[in-house]
């Protein structure tokens, strides 16, 4: 059975470019809208790429900044300067 990697983000202006970037970079992502928050699920892994977010944000963006809008996550975290990834691989 596939395990679900997931990120739940605030649904606000700061998070919107990140949400857009996630949906653009993860073809199989599934979205659930809630009041003020958005839950994005994907089988196995979910990646947030710095370059994609910067493209939408119009400024430099540090993947660590995701914590300002991150509500919850599922998966093992793997992050570096260029991406923020949650997944179940080791």
């Amino acid at each position, binding site marked *: 059975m596939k395990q679900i990697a997931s990120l739940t983000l605030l649904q606000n202006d700061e998070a919107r470019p990140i949400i857009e970037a996630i949906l653009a970079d993860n073809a199989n992502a599934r979205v659930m809208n809630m009041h003020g928050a958005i*839950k994005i699920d994907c089988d196995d892994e979910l990646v947030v790429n710095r370059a994609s977010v910067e493209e939408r944000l119009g400024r430099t963006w540090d993947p660590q900044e995701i914590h300002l809008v991150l509500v919850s996550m599922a998966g093992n975290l793997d992050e570096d300067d260029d991406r923020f990834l949650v997944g179940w691989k080791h």
Partner: protein
Amino acid sequence: MTVQIKTVDFEPKRNTFGHVARRLGGDKPATRYQEATLDVQATANFHYKPLWEPELWQYDLAKTAVHMDDWYKPLDPRQYYYATYNIARANMNQAVERNFTFAEDRGLIEKLSADARTNVARGLLPLRHLHWGSNMNMTEITQRGYGAAVTAPCIFSAGDHLGMAQIVSRIGLELDGQTGASLDKAKDFWMTDPAWQSARRLIEDTFVERDWFQLYVAQTLGVNAVLFDFAYKGADAAWREGAITIAMLTEFMSDWRAEEGRWSDHVVKTVAAESEANKALVSGWAKHWIERAVEAALPLSVALLGDEGKAARAACDAAKARARALGLNV
């Protein structure tokens, strides 16, 4: 009893305003920047034609010779609207405050030699008048310009110039023990020092430029890219051993130039790329105003650096290279 936690998916009925959705090509979530910018310009139902310029309406496309099918094409790559702009500037200003506190604690300005103080008083402090003039120009573009995509960042830029004039003034106050005497002297230099008269003539000539996009080119590629870059980047040697102190106290200006340059370059590039006619007009303006700005920088370069104008010409070359990179023939 078992409790089952159930989540409900709420699809928003609509994601943004109709006029923004039409621009985005569908009802997609829009950014605050887009909602605060797109189609904000008033376009119809004006009641009275202005008496002072009866050939034109208040917001008239004919107030500049360049033509754009859509003035919302030159969007701001920084995506500034009120909140993002203020947050960015508040952060930059925090660094300014810290730098001034540091310079005061260490007595960095007091320790400057007489030679360095004289040059800062003569070469740096009169820049507050140039910033004020630039503030006037950006405000003028805001009121004569067309399309919120261009005019909104212009009023932010006008605010930036006032802020920078204040930073320059604060350096003066550090220099004269908070009496303001150095600022009075700086006004004298601005009004009477031969080294400053070309710069004053340049900015006063821009005040009476009626074509708002020509004024935009004059300000961003002439005054900003030549004069301000010369003053804040090229003239370090003039402040003698105070170069590092001045560089620190004017950190805001370098950050601002790097950031605002991104926007102003994008606007000029987009407008010039619209048509051959635009390109020819903008190229001509850029050439004219860069040359005027170099004329203004030369006597300053000679007087402050004694370099026979080398620093001014370097600023000129950099500005021309910049203009060429934007697709202009200069």
